[in-house]
């Protein structure tokens, strides 16, 4: 029974991770930057939902409000910092976003305090298999909302004009520029959409789990891991590896103990990278 419990928990959690990873893949593919502050954007989105909860609004509305606010936060970050690192070395973007991450962490710590908080949605739980498996309804809700947002985004990317411009820029920024795409605007919009996705995920996390100003980095690492396993621009792969990671984490939590949970995630990242490196080095290639 515990196996089923862990699997289901992991699946629902993994869908949420996949949503964050999708944002990561989007900006990586389009702008060629790696955003270490991804996790901090998620946590900031979570705090927006938490504050709505504090002021008596049901936190589920955060799923609508948080991405709208986070979109503008994302645009602001882009205008201030990211547009200066877009066409530079990837390591510069890693370090610069690391700086943003430290900044956000500390500002959130001042603004919201260093307590672990959660927004209580009051959704109750669902019992399965003769009450042996307990699933909080909030988790099911969050997985459902994540899927809805992911589908909306995919359709938007396929159909809309901006989506087409984003995909064109991802393929070849120079050619897109020649053909009249304002790449600067596309980059800003991409970063904004990524931040909005983080906002949705954050609001869902604040309902289902807990948020804390310093919890950002694990989310960044998870989404990075999902992206390198799935590859850029491979959406089913992102969803699958997200769920796989969720299940892995639940089992690591159960077998090794909660104190090793985050450590095992980071170790898994190292192992995956090392595995891929040895696999590629047989063909005398390396991860690009």
């Amino acid at each position, binding site marked *: 029974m515990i196996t089923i419990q862990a699997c289901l928990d992991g699946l629902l959690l993994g869908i949420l991770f996949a949503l964050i990873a999708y944002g990561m893949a989007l900006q990586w593919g389009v702008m060629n930057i790696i955003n270490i502050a991804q996790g901090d954007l998620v946590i900031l989105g979570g705090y927006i939902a938490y504050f709505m909860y504090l002021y008596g609004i049901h936190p589920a509305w955060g799923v609508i409000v948080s991405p709208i606010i986070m979109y503008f936060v994302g645009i602001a970050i882009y205008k201030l910092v990211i547009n200066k690192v877009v066409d530079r070395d990837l390591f510069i973007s890693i370090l*610069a976003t690391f700086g943003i991450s430290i900044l956000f962490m500390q500002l959130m710590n001042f603004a919201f305090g260093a307590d672990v908080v959660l927004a209580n949605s009051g959704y109750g739980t669902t019992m399965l298999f003769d009450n042996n498996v307990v699933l909080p309804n909030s988790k099911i809700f969050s997985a459902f909302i994540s899927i809805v947002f992911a589908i909306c985004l995919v359709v938007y990317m396929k159909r809309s004009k901006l989506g087409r411009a984003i995909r064109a820029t991802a393929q070849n920024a120079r050619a897109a520029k020649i053909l009249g795409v304002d790449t600067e605007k596309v980059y800003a919009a991409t970063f904004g959409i990524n931040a909005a996705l983080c906002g949705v995920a954050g609001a869902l996390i604040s309902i289902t789990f807990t948020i804390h100003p310093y919890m950002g980095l694990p989310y960044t690492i998870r989404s990075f891991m999902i992206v390198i396993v799935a590859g850029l621009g491979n959406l089913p792969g992102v969803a699958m590896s997200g769920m796989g990671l969720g299940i892995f984490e639940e089992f690591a939590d159960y077998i090794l103990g909660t104190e090793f949970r985050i450590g095992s995630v980071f170790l898994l990242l190292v192992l995956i990278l090392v595995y891929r490196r040895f696999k590629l080095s047989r063909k005398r290639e390396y991860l690009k």
Partner: protein
Amino acid sequence: MNKNSWILYIGILVFGLVAPFIFPAFKVQLSILCVLIVLATTWNIQGGEMGYNTFGNILFYGLGMYLCASVQVGMFFPLAEWTESGGEKTFVHTPSQFFQGMAAGLVVAAVVPTIVAGLIGYAILGLRGHYFAICTLGLGVAAGEISGGIEIIGAGQGFTTPPFPNIGGLEARGEFFYFLSFGALVLTFIAVRAIYTTRFRLILNAIRDNEDKAEAMGIETMKYKITGWMISAFFCGLAGGIMGGLVGYIDSTDVAFDGREMGVFMVLMAILGGKGTLWGPIIGATLFHFFKEGFWTFFLGWQYVALGVLIVVIVIYFPEGLMGWLREKYPERFGEVVDEADRKAQVELK
């Protein structure tokens, strides 16, 4: 080596030797500065010379810290009982035990990370660019999280290192740790300077500039990359061991495997001074230490905000660092032959 640089080196050495007596109030700060310079200089071997930007040198630093303290305690007393008793000391080191333990601890703290670097280096130095950076970042954080779950080295509650024996009080403690860290700094400087005059540095630069071509020229790049990392690990471990004794308390994520602070600091110091130069990291570390202490004093509470802004500003506006800027301005001073016509043509192109 010409006459001027000899005078410079001897001047710095003399200053280093008398500094704790001229500025007795800043002994601890000066020791920390020495450790920071060691870390920045060794990071530069990877990030600057070899082009492998690592966040993972913190792994060796933290490992050295834990190993030094564990050996120092474990040589004379049961380690588990020591960490369990926490702050209330049931065992006391005699002066000779303390110094013997420290000496043995530092040797272990330097040697074991070197071996670890050799082992994991084979696995992860095959990654390149940002994959390497993120992988080492993960390694550092994973080490912090995992060591925070191991009971025998104090788990979450931390590990108190043996207190300095009761001879000469606080003054003697400060001087002991200052000279220890200054010794480590001198050792590191001599070693790195010696390395930088050999073919080894050229090979590292070749790897940085184009690894595939370096390989095609018949250089076994993996061998040199691992050697470079092992050299870094040796000095990082040593610095960690000293820092553990200096701070007096080891926490898994806040002191030892502090990827958010020390792990980024060493990158930042090297970049601030200028990567790929001998003096850059040293100047960068000194400047950074002043900045940092200023932040910690004047913006108390806001220091991390200031730090985050500083990181962003340095990375975006000074990616070449101080030495890079000077080099651009006065290329003749760096022994570069400047073709005036070429330079003018480049200015016009800009």
